């Protein structure tokens, strides 16, 4: 196949912002090429440079062995299907399609034949006299394609042409476009942010991000062998697990050795292991290569998206003491006040400030009538750097007072060697009303328990993904309850046709060909 278009080190800047960072890309004859990426990745800019609507700041566009970088659009053998079609509203369908040929001053009967043939190709042969403004989105789309193709360009550019259509229409047009491309046999350059669209239609996909190209390849290459985590995630949902490449065709993850087909990594190189959800099978526990518990099941129309946890994350359990204490009432000043006892880590004492104490004790004062907040202007306490219980008194200007206990205990934290992370939380006191009124209980529980987790490698925060408790927040009674905070463990997304129940113990099965190895930090 012949190279038709070459982008050579294309750089484009808008208002000092680098939109394209030196793009090098070859497009061959008769290829269906898709530029794929999220909005703002530069894909449309690149297309507009090819169409001639923008000039790059640096670099060259070579078309059919000719430098066309500075050539205006009307001199290029390229036609475009615009995002919103840009059909001329004052012309009917026939006139729209005939526009390019009329400009070229072709004989009337030739124009007639070509336009009719093109309208037939897109299935609109009876619509020539229609106003374009009276047509549906899908029909307008077809007119736009016909209007571009009738000029027999060597390349057709399509700028997210299916974005404005509904799902059913989009699917239909995807097939239609592919069919048209096969029939006319020219190069299509297609821009989209929809990875499914890219996968179904393209011969070649160019995955872009932040003005650069991440990967170029066939849909199967890109899907099965993404070069990095970004591409893997963008191209479809995927399981990405930390692993170590022991030697060629052997990888360790979750402390187990697995055969794979990848080679060429350094011995014991750390890698990302990708396994697609549809490549995993759920089997009885004893037959699986990995064992786990079903965590959630989501019906996706054709299949169930089942999450299997093979290993729990790091977790910590604290006690929540729930009381029904009522606020203190100061009838003279017409004020009310409340505060909780709270636990302190011994390491916290050094840096303890009044506002910390107020926050941790959840101390509040308010006007009994208007419920306006009243500032707490005095915090009195006496604390020593040793375990024990220390009283603290809060008071307002008007003399309303409440006492609470600060309970100093040893560090309550759990270290996970396996995940190289640490999780921390303290016991806490809470009132029935506060729990009943909580709008986002998981988040509030995290705040009350001061729960946090971080990585031991670089101190970065690790998200607490799960908060487990066994009380009913609506009808909670005073008492002591356990609250457990968990970080994410190893989870696998599996597409299954069978329905499993949450809590089922299952096994996961996959073959060497289902394992794809990517370099770490490849983006």
């Amino acid at each position: 196949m012949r190279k038709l278009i070459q982008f050579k080190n294309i750089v484009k800047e808008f208002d000092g912002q680098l939109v394209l960072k030196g793009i090098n890309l070859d497009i061959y004859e008769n290829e269906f090429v898709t530029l794929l990426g999220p909005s703002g990745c530069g894909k449309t800019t690149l297309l507009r440079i090819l169409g001639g609507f923008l000039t790059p700041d640096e670099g060259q566009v070579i078309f059919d062995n000719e430098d066309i970088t500075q050539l205006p659009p009307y001199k290029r053998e390229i036609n475009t299907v615009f995002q919103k079609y840009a059909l001329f509203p004052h012309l009917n369908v026939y006139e729209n399609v005939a526009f390019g040929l009329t400009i070229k001053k072709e004989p009337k009967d030739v124009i007639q034949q070509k336009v009719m043939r093109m309208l037939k190709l897109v299935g609109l042969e009876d619509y020539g006299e229609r106003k374009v403004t009276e047509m549906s989105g899908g029909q307008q789309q077809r007119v736009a394609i016909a209007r571009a193709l009738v000029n027999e360009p060597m390349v057709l550019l399509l700028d997210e042409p299916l974005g404005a259509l509904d799902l059913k229409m989009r699917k239909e047009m995807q097939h239609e476009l592919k069919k048209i491309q096969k029939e006319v046999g020219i190069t299509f350059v297609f821009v989209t942010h929809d990875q499914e669209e890219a996968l179904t239609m393209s011969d070649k996909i160019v995955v872009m991000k932040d003005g650069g190209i991440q990967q170029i390849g066939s849909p199967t290459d890109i899907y099965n062998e993404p070069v990095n985590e970004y591409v893997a995630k963008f191209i479809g949902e995927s399981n990405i697990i930390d692993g170590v490449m022991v030697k060629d065709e052997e990888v360790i993850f979750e402390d187990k050795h697995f055969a794979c087909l990848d080679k060429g990594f350094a011995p014991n190189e750390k890698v990302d292991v990708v396994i697609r959800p549809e490549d995993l099978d759920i089997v009885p526990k004893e037959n699986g290569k990995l064992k786990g518990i079903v965590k959630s099941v989501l019906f996706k129309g054709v299949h169930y998206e089942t999450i299997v946890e093979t290993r729990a994350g790091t977790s910590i359990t604290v006690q929540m003491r729930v009381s029904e204490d009522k606020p203190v009432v100061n009838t003279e000043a017409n004020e009310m006040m409340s505060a909780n006892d709270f636990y302190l880590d011994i390491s916290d004492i050094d840096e303890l400030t009044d506002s910390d104490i107020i926050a941790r004790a959840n101390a509040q004062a308010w006007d009994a009538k208007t419920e306006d907040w009243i500032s707490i202007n005095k915090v009195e306490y006496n604390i020593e750097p040793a375990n024990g219980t220390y009283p603290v008194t809060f008071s307002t200007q008007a003399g309303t007072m409440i006492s609470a206990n600060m309970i100093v205990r040893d560090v309550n934290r759990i270290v996970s060697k396996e995940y190289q992370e640490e999780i921390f939380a303290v016991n806490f006191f809470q009132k029935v009303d506060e729990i009943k009124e909580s709008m986002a209980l998981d988040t509030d529980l995290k705040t009350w328990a001061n729960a946090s987790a971080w990585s031991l490698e670089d101190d970065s925060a690790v998200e607490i993904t799960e908060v487990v408790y066994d009380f009913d927040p609506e009808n909670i009674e005073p008492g002591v309850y356990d609250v457990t905070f968990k970080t994410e463990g190893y989870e696998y997304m599996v597409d299954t046709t069978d329905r499993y129940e949450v809590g089922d113990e299952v096994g996961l099965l996959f073959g060497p060909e289902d394992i794809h190895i990517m370099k770490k930090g490849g983006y």
Partner: protein
Amino acid sequence: MKQFRSMAYPYVFWINVMIVVPMLMIVMYAFTQKGNDVVTFRLTLDNFIYFFSDPIFVSVLKNSLVIAVVTTVICIFLGYPMAYLISQASDRWKVILVLLITVPMWINMLVRTYAWVGILQENGIINNLLGLMGIGLVKLLNTDFAVILGMVYNFIPFMILQIYTALSKMDPSYLEAASDLGANKVESFLRITLPLSLPGVLSGITLVFLPAVSSFFIPKLLGGGQYVLIGNVIESQFLISGNWNFGSAISLIMAVIIMISMYITKKVDREGQSKGGVR
């Protein structure tokens, strides 16, 4: 919606008292004879017969229409390029240019027309300058030229603003598409910009032609005492001769002519929507 309906009552009242009733009165006067009182009116077509049987009135009417058409055509040919330039200018310049066009309209039209008298008269600026260059006295005031100049000057902002609005509403992607399909700048303009701005031109025509055909003070000031257009005839029938019936009849004839011209414009506009320049 219902509770808002009552808010329209003052407007309905206004329309009836200030527009509908006077219109009906014009019709009534036009079809009756002078000297009627409220109880006895006699219907007659005499006023119309008088108008069309007198060649002077007919030629005045013809003259008025010619002047108005010439004014409108000049406004199109001067106003379109101006509007196009504004629409192509940068955002900052757009504001300045539109302001420059609207600012003269803040001053009373009569005052501005008087200014032209000063410029055009025999010892005015232009003749003084020409005199300095050794060119003899040129009669500028009291000519067709002066009247048309005054009308173009007064009415061209309406044309420019209408066309400019139409041009700036146009989606720039149409031009990209035209360029993509092989049209150079001139072809894009002729086949896309021009037909798509036609509605603006047509409403500009309406806004220029109507005041031009019925204006009476511009011909009076710039055309001199003898210069008579149909507007002056109507004015003098009401204010000088006191023949309200005949004045009303002429007004009615004008109204009919204007209605016909508006109908034609609308029709052209509608056809322009479906069939444009490319054929």
